[in-house]
């Protein structure tokens, strides 16, 4: 009788230990996900798309201007657009900076912002831009926004 009850207690203890072990495992692994990247952010992807479109439109409009009236491509006539786009890039930089595990995307945004500021300064210094330089700037920016978009969209899984 004593033996039987002891066995039951041992069985109970073993059963309890086993159940507890499995339960802990389930609880642990149900919350244990591998995170190497931040969560996908649809609003950021939308902002990347909108900024990319704005940049593309900016350069395409510059290209449309009659080359005989190159003064219309003067920096002063474009400064507002430059500032608006820089402000969008600053906003994207800040939003990405506060996201954990996001150093790669942050670097892409940083490079894009730096080049945008560089091209703005070059325009300010030269006062006008040739078709060739506008197209070169447009293509470089297109490539960077495409890269930025890929880096955000891949997080959606």
């Amino acid at each position, binding site marked *: 009788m004593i033996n039987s009850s002891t066995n039951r207690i041992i069985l109970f203890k073993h059963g309890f230990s086993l159940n507890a072990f499995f339960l802990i*495992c*389930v609880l642990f*692994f149900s919350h*244990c996900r591998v995170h190497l990247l931040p969560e996908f952010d649809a609003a950021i992807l939308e902002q990347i798309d909108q900024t990319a479109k704005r940049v593309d439109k900016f350069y395409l409009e510059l290209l449309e201007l009659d080359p005989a009236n190159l003064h219309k491509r003067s920096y002063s006539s474009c400064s507002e657009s430059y500032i608006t786009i820089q402000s969008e890039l600053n906003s994207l930089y800040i939003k990405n900076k506060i996201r954990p595990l996001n150093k790669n995307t942050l670097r892409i945004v940083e490079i894009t912002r730096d*080049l945008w500021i560089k091209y703005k300064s070059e325009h300010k210094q030269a006062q006008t831009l040739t078709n060739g330089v506008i197209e070169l700037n447009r*293509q470089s920016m297109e490539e960077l926004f495409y890269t930025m978009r*890929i880096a955000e969209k*891949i*997080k959606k*899984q």
Partner: protein
Amino acid sequence: MATINIDELMTDMLSAIKSTVSNHWKEIKDSMQQFLIARKARFELLAELRISGELSQEHFESRLEDEKRIAEAEMQALEVISKAMAQKAANAAIDIFQKAVGAAIKTVL
């Protein structure tokens, strides 16, 4: 005006890459080809602008620095893609483990 054969130039660039990574050429060949193809139009334009004098040598070199930074951005994106794939694979393995443990509990309880 002098011209440049961009296809020939791309082949030469690919050969230059090959000579620096001889032992790993097979592993990176496709990526490097894609890397150059993606830049073909921009490199062509860049060369034309320099040859025509629209870009000064200083400005041209500055543009090449920009290309290095664009390439760096692309490397960063590739790292994000690798991380996303690794994350997905690891979580799939954990899901399988979790389901197996859950099934084992049902048989014990």
